[in-house]
Each structure stands twice: as C-alpha cells, then as structure tokens.
C-alpha cells in the first residue's frame, strides 16, 4: 500500500477516534450537566431572573407600591454616596463579618482537633455541638435574646450586650458563633481525616512537637477546607439580616442595623424601592469583589503551603 494511502488511513482513523472521543466527552458532559440542571433551573428562576428584571428599578423613583415610576438616571447612586447614615450599617456588617469569620473558624478548628481523638462520649459531644446547626436563625435570635437579657444579665449582674449601642453587635456575633461553630467543627474534622497518619508519625520520629506537626503538616492539608470555610462565613457575614432584624430590629436605635437590613428598610417600610435597589446593586458588586479577592488570596496560599 502506498505511504500516502497508509497516512490517509491513519489520519482517518485518528479523526474517527477524535470524533468518538469528543462525542463521548459531550455525552459525559451532558450527563454531568443533567445532575446540575434542576438546581440551576431553580437558581435561574428564583435568583437570576428576578435579579435581572429588577436591575432597572435602581434607576427609578419607584416607591414600591405605586403602579408607575419615572427614570431618574444616576440620582440614586449620587444619593447613596452622600448618605451619611449608610456608614453605620456598613461598619456593623464589616465588624460582624470579621469577628464571626475569625471566631467560627478558630473555634471550629480547635474543637475538631480536640475531638479528633476517640474517647468515651466524643460522639455525643460532637452531636451536641453540631445540634445548633438545626436551629433556625430566627429561633436562635429569640433564644439568645432571652438568654442574654433574662438569664445571663440578672444572674451574673452584668449588662446584657444587647442593651447598649456599644456592645449590641458583639451580642449578635455571639449568636452567630454559637450557631455556626458546629458546622465549622464538622468541616474541619472531615479535613483532619485527610491528613496522612504516616506523615505525622514520621514527623514525630524526626522530633517534631505537637505545634510543629500542626502548623507544618496539618494546616497545609487543611488549606482547601480553610479556603472553603472562610469564604462560606465571609458570605454569610456580609449578607447578615436575621439577627439584626429578629433579635434587635436594628436597635437600640439603629446601632445593630446591617447592610441587608438597611437595603430592606428602603425597599419596603421607607417606600424608596428605587434607592434601595441601587444600594443593593452597589453592595452586590462590593461583596463579589471581596469574595473574589479573598478566594484568590486563599487559593494562592493553598498552593504555597
């Protein structure tokens, strides 16, 4: 057979195999996509579609109840940057996010490490710590209002943190830390199980102490979990609404109002939905930026470790 015919046959076989490969990849891809499709459809109809259809409201003077409105261009954006009252909920939200991210992750990790060794009752303790996750945010708020105001305060003769504008955000942080630490513990516990025991034993033989093993071996293996957990609670903190709304209704005064609550107030009881929508849009961009930058930094750290 002439060489050109052999080459031609080889090319044909190559392209046929390539075609079959692509077809198989496409089918696999579609199969994988079909598992994501239900959640994606819900996400599109419940989140994306209303979001897109509501963007234009940010450029109007709609009060939320009238059937008509007028376009006002960037007036709402200018109004937002000249509103001195927006600083308070913004600072509250940042404070809440920073404190809860730090404490939930540190406490969750410490609990996971402490409960990583098997002892009698360790499973019961793990269950008890995780149980806070099944309590709703609303019930958590009501419970802790009672605990802080009607139990801890009179029993220990100290002022409830919810009774002062200076400490009310600390009170809300306590609620969130209590509720979320259980999940952090579970995630870190699962992460700890991926740390190879032989590496730890080898390090011990080489003379490494507990702290050295933890920081040099355990933490690098936990890096992906740390990235996931920090981003998770970063997002939850930045969109915090329930504790502010249910536990304190933004009070005393407006000292515990969060950004989400600020936006809600303008959208509904203040009858300034156009302005509220603009604040929501700008805040969304801010949150996306923060989570993107944080994710990028943490992923880079994962690689370094």
């Amino acid at each position, binding site marked *: 057979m002439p060489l050109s015919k052999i080459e031609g046959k080889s090319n044909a076989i190559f392209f046929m195999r390539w075609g079959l490969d692509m077809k198989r990849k496409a089918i696999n891809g579609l199969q994988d996509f079909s598992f994501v499709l239900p959640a994606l459809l819900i996400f599109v109809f419940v989140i994306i579609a209303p979001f897109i259809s509501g963007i234009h409201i940010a450029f109007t*003077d709609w*009060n*939320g*109840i*009238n059937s008509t409105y007028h376009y006002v261009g960037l007036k*709402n954006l200018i*109004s937002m940057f000249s*509103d*001195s*009252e927006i600083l308070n909920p913004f600072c509250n939200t940042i404070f809440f996010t920073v404190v809860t991210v730090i404490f939930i992750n540190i406490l969750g990790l410490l609990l996971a490490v402490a409960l990583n060794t098997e002892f009698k009752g360790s499973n019961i303790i793990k269950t008890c710590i995780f149980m806070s996750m099944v309590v709703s945010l609303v019930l958590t708020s009501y419970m802790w209002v009672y605990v802080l*105001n009607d139990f801890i*305060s009179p029993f220990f003769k100290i*002022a*409830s943190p*919810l*009774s*002062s*504008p200076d400490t009310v955000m600390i009170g809300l942080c306590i609620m969130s830390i209590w509720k979320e630490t259980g999940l952090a513990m579970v995630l870190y516990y699962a992460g700890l199980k991926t740390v190879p025991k032989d590496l730890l034993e080898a390090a011990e033989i080489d003379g490494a102490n507990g702290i050295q093993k933890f920081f040099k071996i355990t933490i690098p293996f936990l890096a992906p979990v740390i990235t996931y957990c920090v981003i998770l609670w970063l997002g939850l903190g930045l969109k915090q609404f329930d504790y502010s709304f249910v536990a304190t*209704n*933004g*009070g*005393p*005064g*407006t*000292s515990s109002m969060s950004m989400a609550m600020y936006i*809600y*107030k*303008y959208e*509904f*009881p*203040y*009858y*300034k939905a*156009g*302005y*509220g929508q603009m604040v929501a849009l700008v805040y969304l961009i801010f949150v996306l930026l923060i989570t993107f930058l944080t994710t990028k930094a943490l992923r880079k750290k994962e690689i370094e470790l």
Partner: protein
Amino acid sequence: MHYLVETGKLKALNDTVEGFKKKYPNVEVDVQGMSLDQYSNTLNMKISAGDMPDIIFGNPKSFADIVNSGNILDLTNQPFTSRVDQDAVKCAEVDGKVYGIPMDLMLSGVIYNKDIFAQNNIQIPKTYDEFIKVCETLKKNGVTPVAAGYKDMASVGGSFWCQLYGGALAQMPTMRADIMSGAKNPSDFPLIKQCLSQWRTINQYTDNALQVGVDRSEQELGSGKAAMIIIGSWAISSVRNYGPDTNLGAFLFPFFNDSSKNKMQYNTDDTWMISSKSSNQAAALAFFDYMTTTDAASTWATDVPAVSAITGAKAAKLDPILDDMNATLKSGAAYNALAETNFFGQSSSVWDNQMQAWQFSKDDVDTFLKSMDSAMANARTTGK
C-alpha cells in the same frame, strides 16, 4: 390584617367578627395577626405582591404613603362614617378625606398604683417638679418609681406620646409637618429639648428599662413592683392581666411647671381601613357598617376596654384607670395629637428610632439633637 396583641382588643375583634358572621353567615372572615414591628413590612410586601388584605388595621395618617398611592378606599361619603365622633374622625383624615374608621380613643397618662401612693403619703403631682419629687420619695422608700421597657418600641412610643404630644405639642402643633418638610429641625423646637432632658431625668427612676420590653414593664406595674408607668390606654388590658385587682388610677402627665399648660394627649386608637383594590369590597363595607352600630361598638368598647369613638356607643363599665383618663378628657385639659399631620413613612421610623436611641445614648442633649437633625434631614432627602 392587624397587629393587636392586647387580650381585650383580641376579644373585641373576635366578638365583632362573630357578630358579623351571625348577621352574614355566608361571608367567610379570615383574620391575620402579627407583631407591630413586622406589620408595616408585611403589609408593604402584600401590596407589592398584589395580595392586599380587604380590611387593614392602622391609622391612615401613619400609613399616608399607602393612602397617597391609591391603595386605601375613601370612606368620606359612606353612611357609617357619620357615626364616628366628629373630633375623632379628623384623626383618620388625609388631605381632608376620611380613609379609616376609628373605634376608640387612645388616651395617654401616668397609670399609678393608688395604694403605693397612699402608703407613701403621696399626692398626685400637678407640675413636673412635683412629679420628680414623687419619684424621689418612692425611690427613697424602696419602690421602683417608674416602670419602662425601652427594648420595645411600644414602650418608647407610649412614653413620648404621653410626654411630648400633650401640652407640649399643643404649643407647637405643626412640629411634625415642619420637620418632615425641612422647614425646621428638631433642634429648633425648645420643647423637644425640654422633653428629652426631662425624659433622661425620669429614666433615673426606672429599673432595668434598657433590658426589658413593654410586657415586663406592664407586669411590674400590674404586680405592684413599680408605682407608675407613662403610657397609653392601649396598655390597660395587659396591665390588668398582671394585676386584675391592683388599685390603679391615672393622672395627667405634668410636662410643664405651669399646670395650666398641661394637657393630656388623646387621639384615636384602633382604626380600620379598607383596601381600594379589594375584590370583596361590598363585604368589607358591610363589616364596617356592622362594626359601627351602637351595639357592636359598645361591645368593642367594653371588651378593650376603651372610650368609644362611635357616637352613642360606650363601654358597659370602664376600668378605673380609664375613668380617670376620661375625666381628664372631659375636663378639657386634652389635646388631639392627630388633628395635625403625623410622621409617616421613613420619617416616622427614623423619629421612633431616634427616640429609642436617646434612651441608650450617653451624649448630652444638644449633641444628640444635632444627630437627630441629621437623621430627620436624611430621612427627608435620601432616595427622593
């Protein structure tokens, strides 16, 4: 839809609904209640969603935004509107039209324990200085002078409606309209400064007011732990839950040292509106027609208990607290706090928040008034 929580008012509503259902057995009535804090938000969401209730609890002046958006039915020319006392119906007007039917009057005052006063040889104070002296005496004798629960807006509102909206507001009747229009700031009104300063002094005679809610403060008075509470008549049924036999009465809060200037704040309390978009408007109008009959309105007034706003209707028996308040009303030393424009929308929310913030503030009154000016100006201009 409503935000009634007091036992008496819930009974009044239930009796009215049952009475209406007996007259119109084919009409189904679905009653939905929620807390005051969530009421406005829920109502707005229902309006936005096109799911507005047929009958809405609330005063049109406080819901002026909803009225001005065309969502509330004009009741000016309805036959039952003329059954409301002429002075009371003004409280349900927006731009000269009647948008609500008030069932009873809300009177403010200092509810006090007569036995504690007698035991401590205390007379009813007629001036502010005398009031403070009474507080001093009670405190020295180990009695909590004033019960308050500023964790809840209801306690804050009950207190400033009583202190500021009586004789003081009578001296500055357009205060709220002036602040909302930007013509004046809160700091331009010396009587607002006086109210805040006096309120801070009175708070020295409360116990744990920053950590408890209105319910606990009502309990403290009803059970005899505290001697006085500065509040509105809407709280009477809750106070009585805690102290059905406590010997209680009420007196006019003395804002001024010149007793001739002191007036009791009154306005209408439980007011109902009809949605202009209601698909059951005929039934809603029939409900209002029934509700304002002398019998139904008298039952309402007896259950609450309250002074009826419907001409010819009255409670079978008034609580002694209300007897005292009613006597002050009839004496003429009273001011209708809803005769003029009331705060509404964001201004109302910000005003209430500022009043609550004052209870927790460590600022001096002038510094606080500056922040109040800024907050009220912001409410007027942001997003407009």
